């Protein structure tokens, strides 16, 4: 503990100066309990050992009316903009815009589709949302035209996401679509699934073997395709705010939601990607502004910009 405090940058300890960061970090911590929930059900712990039903059956038709009612209620909680996942909701615009920007900036001819437009830039692209939870990321990707596979190892999450997806007729009209599957990244590899883009947002810090997880994700991407990861850095600041403050002192989220050891540094993630034959393209910090209640990318010139939450893009090499 003392060791962590000693390492803290002085700006974070200075009274006053630390306020914004505190809220930001606590926000980051709060954005995560759903993952704790899905992990508790064995979502990605350990990824390789989760044996689930094959895709397709999970979201099956055998679900009875009571179940549907229950999933609708849970879906309402998941999607309540002011509910427990408010911070995750608010994180969505910056994450999705990042995917847009990265594809526009670095997506070569392999990712260029004739049917893409400004309104539907992902039209014709097959995108995997791994750890899709209630569908926060899958739905925007679908609205932007993508053919999405949303995968989650929690059956309840898949039911919730499917229920919510069916509520909005605009999503059904296309050009995008979502295929929610109760499955794991490993199973998808076994099934020899291939995607133009794989997004793994706020998930890698919850898996047991991140290096293996990165490799698995990379196997799901076509050559010249893209991977996007977002997560929290392992720094004294992130320990202080996401675990000490948010879990132990303020009890905003249950103790044990996070395991600080599992947080991953950008350098580590970049290394795992390179080991898996991927080329990192960009890494950007994400910060929460409590006044505007919105997340934005932190300028690369700002010291400590990667101290807390960050998002990263990489390209799968041809070889």
């Amino acid at each position, binding site marked *: 503990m003392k060791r962590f405090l000693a390492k803290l940058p002085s700006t974070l300890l200075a009274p006053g100066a630390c306020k914004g960061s505190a809220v930001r970090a606590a926000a980051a911590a709060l954005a995560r309990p759903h993952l704790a929930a899905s992990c508790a059900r064995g979502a990605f712990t350990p990824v390789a050992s989760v044996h689930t039903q094959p895709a397709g059956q999970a979201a099956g038709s055998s679900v009875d009316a009571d179940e549907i009612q229950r999933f609708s209620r849970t879906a309402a909680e998941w999607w309540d*903009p*002011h509910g427990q996942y408010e911070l995750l*909701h*608010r994180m*969505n*615009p*910056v994450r*999705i*815009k990042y995917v*847009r920007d990265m594809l526009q900036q670095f997506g070569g001819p392999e990712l260029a589709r004739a049917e893409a*437009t*400004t*309104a*539907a830039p992902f039209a014709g692209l097959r995108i995997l949302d791994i750890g899709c939870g209630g569908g926060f990321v899958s*739905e*925007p*990707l*679908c*609205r*932007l035209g993508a053919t999405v596979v949303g995968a989650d190892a929690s059956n309840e999450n898949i039911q919730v996401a499917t229920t919510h997806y069916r*509520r*909005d*007729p*605009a999503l059904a009209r296309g050009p995008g679509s979502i295929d929610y599957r109760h499955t794991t990244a490993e199973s998808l590899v076994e099934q020899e699934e291939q995607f133009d883009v794989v997004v793994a947002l706020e998930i890698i810090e919850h898996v047991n073997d991140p290096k293996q997880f990165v490799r698995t994700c990379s196997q799901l991407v076509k050559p010249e395709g893209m991977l996007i990861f977002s997560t929290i850095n392992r720094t004294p600041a992130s320990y202080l705010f996401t675990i000490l403050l948010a879990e132990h002192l303020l009890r905003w989220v249950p103790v044990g939601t996070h395991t600080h050891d599992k947080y991953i540094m950008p350098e580590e993630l970049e290394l795992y990607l390179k080991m898996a034959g991927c080329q990192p393209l960009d890494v950007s910090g994400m910060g929460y502004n409590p006044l505007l209640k919105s997340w934005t990318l932190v300028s690369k010139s700002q010291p400590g910009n990667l101290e807390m939450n960050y998002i990263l893009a990489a390209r799968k090499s041809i070889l």
Partner: protein
Amino acid sequence: MRCAPGGLTRCDATSAKSPFLANKTIALIEAGDLMRTPALESGTFANRASSITPGSARFLQGLGVWDAIEPKQAYTRMVVWDSESDGRVDFDAYSHGAGAAAMPEGHGPAIAWMVQNHLIQHQLAECVARTPSIVLFNESKVHSIVRSESSGLPVVSLDRGEPIECQLLVGADGLHSKVREYAGIESIGWDYDQHGIVATLAVEDDGTGNDTAWQRFLPTGPIALLPDVQQLAPGYSSLVWSTKPAIAAKLTKAAPEVFVELVNAAFHNPVADIDFLGSQVQADGSIADGVDIAGEASWGRERARGQDSGERMPPRVVGVQPKSRAPFPLRLRNSTSYVYERTALIGDAAHTTHPLAGQGLNLGLADARALAASVSDAAQAGGDVGGADALGAYAAARFASGAAMLAAADGTSRVFGGLVPSQLRGIGMRLVNGSARAKALLAAVASA
């Protein structure tokens, strides 16, 4: 599908062009006939002009309609003074105004432009017609709105045809908004004990090019003279006179030459003269026997000449356009919220302001612009156009400024409009005059 019933401001919300929204369809529902050029009868709203601020003008320019609206009459000065003190604010766009960047392209500094309402409406209707993603339900009345149980989407039924289910329902349907009723949003406010009288006046050419907006605070309420813009005839001004309902009734009925004298008196004579002249007009608009209104008024001005400050004064009014006089009640209304599940209110449906600030249309256009931006932002990030993100951003952008504008219009009318003793009013006016910040505030209102 988005859906928007409504009037003048409505056209803008729906036709705001964003490439991020290119795959959305907009249903535009209008009870009246949007495409018909109105008969330009005197006294009709269509034949009246509105003052368009630079912000609104830039928005209209972005939609490709501003440059097609001709003629426009710019005004670059605004003079506000008090009848019972020496308080006077003389504001000009060249020395105090917003920078060139705030102006629409191709225009020098101005406080605002006077534009005929029917021309704005016509150009926006043309814009609607050439925008394929807008489906116009013309001369169609919204009959009922219900919330779909299965999807939570609003379902709008018209007086004929199939019901329309939409992702986002925009209520631009004016003061008695059906959309607001559907959303269960309360509209709170009050009616002022004042009526406004509007009229189109012929004014003497004083060689200044009719470039100034004039406003004088009288104990009974403010009177304002704005440059007007008529299709072919120069030398017109537009009057907005707020006063006690009983006086407003008399003014509406008085003979044209009497009305003209009373307007001139209201701008140029001491308050005692105005009270006296007003009292000589009977309830039916006729004049007490043997009273020479014109003579009394000019005698009063002669007598007051000693106190003449030498400041520039409004041009003399020489005539009133037949049938252009119309009274209307003044009210202030603000909705307790501008948004609801998949629903947004804009324009008069959201708020109605005292016309003192002349901001009704401009506020509505600013709402439309903010809503379009919020919806476009949400769409760019793959968000639901009727979702909480988009609507939250719109409400955050507009609720505070709507309420602030209303409070400002109401505050000024309460300070200056006869609700406080004249002494205080004088002090208020002197404060305004003395304070650069107050002037800047005035400028902000004028160029919102």
